[in-house]
Every structure is written in structure tokens, then in C-alpha cells.
């Protein structure tokens, strides 16, 4: 009973400026890179989600009579096809909008798989050390000795190309950076006294790993995740370009670049438009990751 009495006398700090949520909102506003990068990424995600509402045409319908129509700002362009049509007469803007779905889904899904695998391995190796660490280091070394593109090509060649296969292959191959960074950081953290305090309080290993160690890895994880999402998107484009990723007629930015390469001297926008979209997305993700890291790292700014 005596425990509860003094709490009434403690003033609630709501009115003052120390409220955590208000603090973060103000700090988000102070991060131009997060605002710009995050804004572009969120915009692309929204476009991907609402693609059926936004696309002016069906991305799969061919119109042989209106092939390689240039975008509206060139001679011969029309508002009917704002970004023109491709070599089969499909509306290019619609294909670009639907293609955002593929690129974003593959980027996020593959990195989600890779992040879970790499973080788990790294946490176990870094925290336990010894034999466990030897196994984790060995697995990482084996993974690093495999060239991703080569392995991905082989697997896609065996199982056939599809969005699912590309996600699984990239997810199973791109965990190495997560594992290396998480392992090193977890090894440092697990020697600190707040881990000893949690052990002395009787906390389980699972509790310590998930509640005490993992939150301190957030800045590193965010930076790696953004790098890896960007690289997975590029890798999907590369695989699709090589004809081993997403199969036609599914609209994917990498596939659009690939299909456009034969026409690039005559209708260069066919390759420039999806290329620009890809570059913009990767740039925005990296920018947002930088801003996010500055925002949440405890020893960064105020």
C-alpha cells in the first residue's frame, strides 16, 4: 500500500516539451533527407497500392496500330498516352505504375526474409560467441564466397522465373551484411553491464536478446535494410533484364528496360523512363535510410 501513495504527488510531464511523441515529430521535421527520401518512397508505395485506380489504361492490352508512340511532350505525342506506348502498343505510364508494385514488393519482401535470417544468425553468434560464433562465421564465409548473381541465375534457370522465386532467392542470398554487422554489434553489447543486470535479474536469454540487445541494433539494421532494399530492387531489374526474373508480360521496371534495349536508338524514352524511375526509387530509399538513422540513433543528435 505504501508503494502507491507517492505516485499521486508526481506531476505528469504532459504539458511540458518533454513528451516523446512531440519530440520525434519535431525532429522528423528537422531531417530534410528523411522528408524528401521518405516522401518519394511513400508516394511510390501509394502509387503501387492504388495502381488499378491510377493507371489510365490496362497495362496488358496491346495495340499494334499505336506502337512506340512518343510521350506527350514530343512531336506526335498525345494526352491519350502521356508517357507514350511501347513496342507492342501498351500504355507506358500504366506499365510503369504497375511495375512499381513488382519492384517494391520484391525489394521489401526479399529484404524482410534476409533481415530475419541475418539478424538471427548475427545475434546468436555475437551473443553466445565460442562454437556458435564459429558456425555463424563459417556460414557467413560460405555465403560470401558465392557470387549472388551467378547463384540466382542458376536457381532461376532450374526453377523458372517468377516473382516468388526471385523473392526467395534474393532473401536466401542477401542476409550476409545483416549477419556480419549484427554479430559485431551484438558481441560488443553483450559484454555491457546492462546485459549482466538483466541476467542477474533472472531474465531468459530470449528476453535479453529481443528486449535488451535487439533495440540497440535498430540504427544499424535500418541502414543495412535500406542499402539492401535498393540493391535487391536493382538485382531484380538485372535478373529481369537478363530474362531470368519476372517473365513477360508482367510489367517490371527491369523487364521494361530489357524489352526497350532493341529500340533505344530510335525511341530512347522507352529505356530512359523506367531507368529514371528505378534510379529515383533507389536514391530515395537511401536518402530515407540516412535520415532515419540520424533520427533514431541515441548518440547522434540531441
Amino acid at each position, binding site marked *: 500500500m*505504501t*508503494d*502507491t*501513495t*507517492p*505516485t499521486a*504527488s*508526481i*506531476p505528469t*510531464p504532459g504539458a511540458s516539451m*518533454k513528451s*516523446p511523441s512531440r519530440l520525434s515529430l519535431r525532429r522528423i521535421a528537422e531531417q530534410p533527407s528523411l522528408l524528401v527520401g521518405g516522401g518519394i518512397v511513400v508516394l511510390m508505395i501509394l502509387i503501387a497500392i492504388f495502381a488499378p485506380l491510377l493507371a489510365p489504361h490496362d497495362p496488358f492490352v496491346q495495340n499494334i496500330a499505336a506502337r512506340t508512340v512518343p510521350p506527350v511532350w514530343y512531336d506526335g505525342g498525345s494526352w491519350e498516352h502521356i508517357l507514350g506506348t511501347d513496342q507492342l502498343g501498351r500504355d507506358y505510364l500504366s506499365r510503369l505504375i504497375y511495375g512499381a508494385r513488382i519492384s517494391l514488393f520484391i525489394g521489401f519482401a526479399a529484404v524482410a526474409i534476409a533481415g530475419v535470417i541475418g539478424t538471427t544468425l548475427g545475434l546468436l553468434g555475437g551473443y553466445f560467441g565460442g562454437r556458435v560464433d564459429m558456425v555463424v562465421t563459417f556460414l557467413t564465409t560460405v555465403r560470401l564466397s558465392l557470387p549472388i548473381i551467378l547463384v540466382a541465375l542458376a536457381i532461376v534457370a532450374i526453377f523458372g522465373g517468377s516473382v516468388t522465386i526471385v523473392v526467395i532467392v534474393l532473401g536466401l542470398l542477401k542476409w550476409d551484411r545483416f549477419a556480419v554487422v549484427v554479430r559485431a554489434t551484438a558481441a560488443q553489447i553483450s559484454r*555491457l*553491464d*546492462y546485459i*549482466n*543486470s*538483466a*541476467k*542477474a*535479474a*533472472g*531474465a*531468459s536469454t530470449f*528476453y535479453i536478446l529481443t528486449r*535488451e540487445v535487439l*533495440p*540497440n541494433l*535498430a540504427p544499424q539494421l535500418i541502414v543495412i535494410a535500406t542499402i539492401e532494399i535498393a540493391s535487391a530492387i536493382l538485382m531484380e531489374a538485372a535478373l529481369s533484364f537478363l530474362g531470368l526474373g519476372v517473365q513477360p508480360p508482367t510489367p517490371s521496371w527491369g523487364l521494361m528496360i530489357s524489352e526497350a534495349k532493341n529500340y533505344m536508338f530510335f525511341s530512347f524514352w522507352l529505356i530512359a523512363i523506367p531507368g529514371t524511375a528505378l534510379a529515383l526509387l533507389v536514391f530515395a530509399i537511401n536518402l530515407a535510410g540516412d535520415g532515419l538513422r540520424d533520427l533514431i540513433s*541515441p*548518440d547522434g543528435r540531441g
Partner: protein
Amino acid sequence: MSMTPILETRNLHRRFRVSQGHFKPKATLQAVNGVDLSVQRGETLGIVGESGCGKSTLAQMLLGLLPATSGEVRLDGRPIADLRRVDFARRVQPIFQDPFSSLNPRKTLLDIVTMPLRVHAIGSRAEQEARARTLMDRVGLPAGFADRYPKELSGGQRQRVAIARALVMQPDVVICDEPTSALDASVQSQILNLLMELKADFGLTYVFISHNLSVVEHIADHVAVMYLGRVVEKAPVDAIFDAPQHPYTRALLDSVLTVAPDAGVPELALGPGFPNPLRPAPGCPFHPRCPRAFEPCSTIPPTPVPAEGRGAACHLTEMTPRGAAA
């Protein structure tokens, strides 16, 4: 001495295998080498010694964080290896040296202090927070600190948070591993006084590890002096400071700096620096540095300090027993 001590160690050993580089055999480091200690309920046992004497290894073992190579730690006469981790944790809690690494930087102070209660699922969320706020108030943290993060606090305030966390489960024993040595001198005495008040209020038993003799003199009832993993002298605090028997204890006492301006830096008769703990000297491990070493010291190890009562592990006291020495 007939009562069962609340915490005791029986012939406690801890060895580490130390790598000396590639393709070289591993060396053995005896960090704790046959330590017998006991603390009665409500007492404070001070453990002193220079860096590397095994104090912190001993603290880890008393907390059950490090298993013994041989020997055992007992709580109320029961080996802690037989106790469930969770039950032991409710009764023995730590305060660590460095308040900058002992608080998780991503948690609010309230989360840090309620952590042990959440691990043990004691009470509802509201009860846990109420208890944590009461303790934070008791250790002298300003109201409204609950939602702050450790980086916003000074060293002394952080150590108060660590104390609140250690006491939130109402343990019986608190192992203080150099709790003041990372703090400013003025803050040290505040924290020491707080620890003594809390001891009286909560009926705590302390094991207080320090390299600072004046701190130990202030707070301890009994003192054990460690050298290279062994207890070389053990006595009530007054006896240690008034009539030290072991030459090492005497050297430690002489090394205390005073504020007297003309006293200068104390001149020690300890000879060369710290010995190599991988190759301890034969006979008495202290003899290469001992100003009063004589012939048997280099060959015959002195009789260890008895498990009960007081004494010094030294050939000098064996030949000329004085005072209450056994």
C-alpha cells in the same frame, strides 16, 4: 559465528584458459584461487585489492553469472547451483561500477527500473510502475524523470537508477562491484550515504567490492583483502585499519592519499609493478614485492586464512602471533 551466513563461499576457484597467440599453448589464469568468505545477514563485507586481483570475477560468481571451476557459493547454506536462477535473482542483486554501461540507452528510466518486475511477472503494469516510482523517489531521483533516457542523466543520477533497479525486487543481498569508483569525489559520498541509508531501511546485506580503502572503511563491518585471487587477510574493519597484519594490507593502507599538502605522494616499499598472474611466484605469491620477506617465503606457501573468523595468510603472523590472530 554459529548462525548460517546469508552468503558464503567455500573453497571457491575460477580458472580461465588464456590464449597467448596462435600456435602457443593456452595458459591458465587462476582468477579466484580458493576463496572462503562469509557474510552474516545485515552486515557489510568489504573486499579490497588492486586491479586484477580477482575482485570482479568474485563478484560475477557471487551473482551466479559465472560458474565456479570448483568450490561453491552458498545462499543460506544452500549451494546456488541448486537454486533456480529466478529464485536466486529475487534475493541477490547487483550494482555495477560503470553507470554508463549498466543502463540500456534505448529504455526509459521507468522501463529500466521495472525490468526485474516484468521479468518475474510481479504485479500488474500499474503496480510495477508505482513501485518503481516509489523507489526512484526514495533513491533521490527528481519526480518526472521516469520518462527520460539514460543519456540525459549525470553519472551520479545514473547510479541512483541502477540502485533503484537493484532494490525494486526487495532483495536480501546486494553485490556492489565498485559502485562509486566511476563517480566524482563529491558524488561518491552522496551515493555511499544513500547506500547506507537504504541498508538500514530495507535490512540489506552488502558485499562491497572496492579498491578504495577509505570507502570500505566508511561502509564495511568486515574486510577481506585479496591478492592474486586469494584472500590474504580478513578481519573486522577496525582491526584492519588499526592493526593490519599482512604486509600487503599495510602497503595498501600506506598508499591512501591524504589531503595534507606536505605529505606528498606516499612512498611504497612494494618494489616492481604488478606480478604476472599467469605465473604466480612459488611459496607466498606476494614475496617478490614484500618488504619483509624472509627465507621460507619463497618456498613454503603460508597457511590460508581460516574460513571462519579473522587472520592473515603470512609467515610473519604464524611466527609471532599477536592480538586476536588465531
